[in-house]
């Protein structure tokens, strides 16, 4: 209910003289739209148009060099699974995602707990954990490509000197080792990134909550599982969304470190797209794969956002 006094004030406000009205193009709304227009034009040109184009390409016969050869829907989608690497790549990408996400989540949590303590030396630890984040994924992959090489890798000589091994460990020579070595590289590169997200989440938990838990007689382990983890749920969900999305789209690390080998055992889905486009010269199938990846990722993210929502309500 509005009070009569307020209505009285409203009535006293002087009506706007018509002469003061500006033409529409000088209005504040028009100016705002003008400031947003470069971004709008950019997004339409380089986001909306390519998105429409990839849809059309996925429904067309589109060799790399000849270009558009007309609609052939749904041949590209049907033909996707003809590639004998398709299902192995899907399976491998999922396997990689599950392992990497699990390791990253646990390790980043431990690291965040370590660096949120107020102890001497903690700044050093935080910087040390965080440094690999500055490197590009390609640089990090090239680094580990040398690190794991039989030629200049540092681990084999040390193990040989200790008498633990003869010869060399095949760091990327077998399918399982190639997967494990790549996981080591990815964890090294990204653990600090997710640590910071969790650290920001930890620091936003009010200290009163911990005091209350202490007064109620909770020990450290109980406090962590009953108080910290539930309150950290939004940050944990963010870590999950980012790490799952990133892992499902894995490319650089495998392209550089294993090149899909040995015996195509580490080919990921995004690598399939690259191969279709630039080694089999079939942009139509590459586009169809891209559309499928987009749809799968949208579904995964919608499911995860639901999870995130429920966590914060």
């Amino acid at each position, binding site marked *: 209910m509005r009070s009569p006094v307020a209505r009285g004030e409203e009535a006293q406000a002087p009506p706007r003289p018509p002469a003061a009205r500006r033409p529409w193009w000088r209005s504040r709304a028009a100016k705002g739209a003008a400031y947003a227009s470069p*971004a709008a034009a950019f997004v339409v040109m380089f986001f909306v148009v390519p*998105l429409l184009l990839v849809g059309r390409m996925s429904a067309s016969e589109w060799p790399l060099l000849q270009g558009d050869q007309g609609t052939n829907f749904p041949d590209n989608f049907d033909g996707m699974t003809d590639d004998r690497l398709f299902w192995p790549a899907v399976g491998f990408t999922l396997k990689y995602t599950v392992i990497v996400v699990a390791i990253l989540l646990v390790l980043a949590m431990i690291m965040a707990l370590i660096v949120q303590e107020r102890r001497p030396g903690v700044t050093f630890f935080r910087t040390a954990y965080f440094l690999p984040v*500055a490197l590009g994924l390609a640089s990090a992959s090239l680094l580990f490509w*040398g690190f794991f090489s039989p030629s200049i890798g540092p681990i084999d000589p040390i193990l040989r000197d200790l008498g633990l091994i003869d010869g060399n460990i095949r760091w990327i020579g077998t399918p399982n080792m190639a997967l494990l070595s790549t996981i080591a590289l990815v964890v*090294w590169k990204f653990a600090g990134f997710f640590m*910071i997200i969790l650290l*920001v989440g930890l620091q936003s938990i009010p200290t009163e909550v911990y005091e209350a838990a202490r007064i109620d007689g909770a020990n450290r382990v109980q406090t962590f599982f009953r108080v910290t983890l539930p309150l950290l749920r939004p940050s944990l969900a963010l870590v999950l969304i980012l790490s799952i999305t990133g892992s499902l789209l894995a490319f650089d690390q495998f392209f550089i470190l294993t090149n899909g080998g040995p015996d195509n055992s580490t080919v990921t889905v995004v690598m399939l797209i690259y191969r279709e486009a630039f080694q089999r010269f079939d942009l139509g199938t590459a586009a169809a794969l*891209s559309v499928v*990846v987009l749809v799968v990722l949208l579904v995964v993210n919608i499911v995860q956002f639901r999870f995130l929502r429920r966590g914060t309500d």
Partner: protein
Amino acid sequence: MRLQHTLGRTPYYVVAGGLAIMFLVPLVWTTVASVSPHSATAQQVGYGLGNYRTLWDYDAGLLQYLWNSTFVSVLTVALTLGLSLLGGYAFGRFRFLGRDVLFLLIIAILMVPYVTLLVPLWVLFGDLGLRNSLFGLSLVLTLYQLPFAMFMMRISFEAVPKEIEESALVDGCGTFGVLRRIMVRAVWPGMLTVGLFAFLHGWNDFIAPLFLINDSATYPLPLAIATLRQQTMGAVDFGATQAGVVVMALPCLFLFLVLQRYYVRGFMSGALKG
């Protein structure tokens, strides 16, 4: 009591220190390996810069690749800052038709995998003459920085008190004068964060140039170094590769250490939460 206290601290430092070593060893190793003697590299005897000399003379020359990467990164920073400064001003301080739709559309870029756009962009850029062009590459890199940049600049502009803007408008400033004289001073920490993210992305990205650049003299550094190692089959140059890793890492580590505060700001803002 004192002993117990010390004992309680020891496991912490063992775990924390062990992890620190794990994260530092590869960085230290690559630096040392790039100058160490090894039969598989150009540095045969004693420590020295042999690998860096190989790198210097590789194909189009290190200087060319440094220039390519710098050009792409700086242009990406400039384009990202330009679009997000004007756009953030619009989203943060104005109401206009289509405002929410446009903002959602920009955030939606995050939902679309890089590779899904690279396939059509390869075709589109062919028509526009932007394929094989560092300018075209910067446009793509800018596109992927826009969601974060726009969010960051929008909340930066929204945080500026209304009174400052109004008093300037009363003093006869136009909206652009307000932006140039007053707003820029208030939102520069946000701009620094956006610029840092854009630079690191432009400097480090691998998959966009892999798709869009096919002339080896136009390669940015990561692509050039990745090609260098597989240049001659059988004679892989591990040493020059690690020298390349060091060259690529140095500017990033430097900027990162100097601007760490602004990097972490990107996480604090919640901008990454979309």
